[in-house]
C-alpha cells in the first residue's frame, strides 16, 4: 500500500477521534456541533483522499474524489441548519458564553414580521 495513503488514513482517524471526544466532552450544543462537524468532516475527507491516492484514476478512485465535495458541502449546510433550528427552538447557550450576536438578528426579524402583520 502507498505510504501517503496510510498517512492520510491515520490523520483522518485522528481527526475523527478528536471530533468524537469533543462531542462527548464539550458542555453546549453549539460547542459540540462546532467541534464535531468540522473535525469529523475533515477526517472523513482525508480518508476518502487517501482512497483516491491508493486507487488512482480508476472507477473507485474517481467516486471517492467525487464524494469529497459532496460530503463537504452537505455536512456544512446540515450543521448550519441544525444550529439555526436549535436556536429558534429555544436551546439555551452555555452559562459562560461571552457573546451572542444572533440574538439581535432574531429580534429584528421577528419585529419585522410583526410590522408586516
Amino acid at each position, binding site marked *: 500500500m502507498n505510504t501517503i495513503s496510510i498517512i492520510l488514513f491515520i490523520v483522518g482517524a485522528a481527526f475523527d477521534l478528536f471530533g*468524537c471526544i469533543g462531542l*462527548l466532552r464539550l458542555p453546549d450544543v453549539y460547542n459540540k456541533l462546532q467541534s464535531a462537524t468540522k473535525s469529523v468532516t475533515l477526517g472523513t475527507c482525508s480518508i476518502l483522499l487517501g482512497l483516491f491516492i491508493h486507487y488512482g484514476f480508476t472507477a*473507485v478512485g474517481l467516486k471517492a474524489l467525487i464524494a469529497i465535495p459532496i*460530503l463537504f458541502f452537505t455536512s456544512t449546510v*446540515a450543521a448550519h*441548519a*441544525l444550529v439555526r*433550528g436549535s436556536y*429558534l427552538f429555544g436551546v439555551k447557550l452555555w452559562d459562560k458564553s461571552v457573546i451572542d450576536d444572533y440574538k439581535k438578528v432574531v429580534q429584528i426579524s421577528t419585529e419585522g414580521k410583526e410590522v408586516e402583520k
Partner: protein
Amino acid sequence: MLDILIYILMGLGFLCFIRVVIGPTMVDRMVAIDIFGILVVGICALLVLKSGRTFLIDVAIAWIMLSFIGTITLAKYLTGKKLDE
C-alpha cells in the same frame, strides 16, 4: 493496520451512541446521529480497501445524501415550520 483503523472508527461510533443515550436535549441526539452518519462513510471507505468489494463506495455516497436529507428534515422540524415554507 486497516483492521485497527476500522476498529477505532467503530469505537467512535459507539461514543456517538453514548451521546445519543445520555444527551440532555433533543438537539444533542440529532447532532450525534449526524456525526455517526459521517463516520459510517469513513468506515465504508476503509472497508473498500479491506474487502476489495468496490460497490461499498457507492453505499458511502448514498449514505452521505440520505444523512443530509434526514438532518435537514429534523432541522426544519425544530424551527416549527412545514417542509415547503
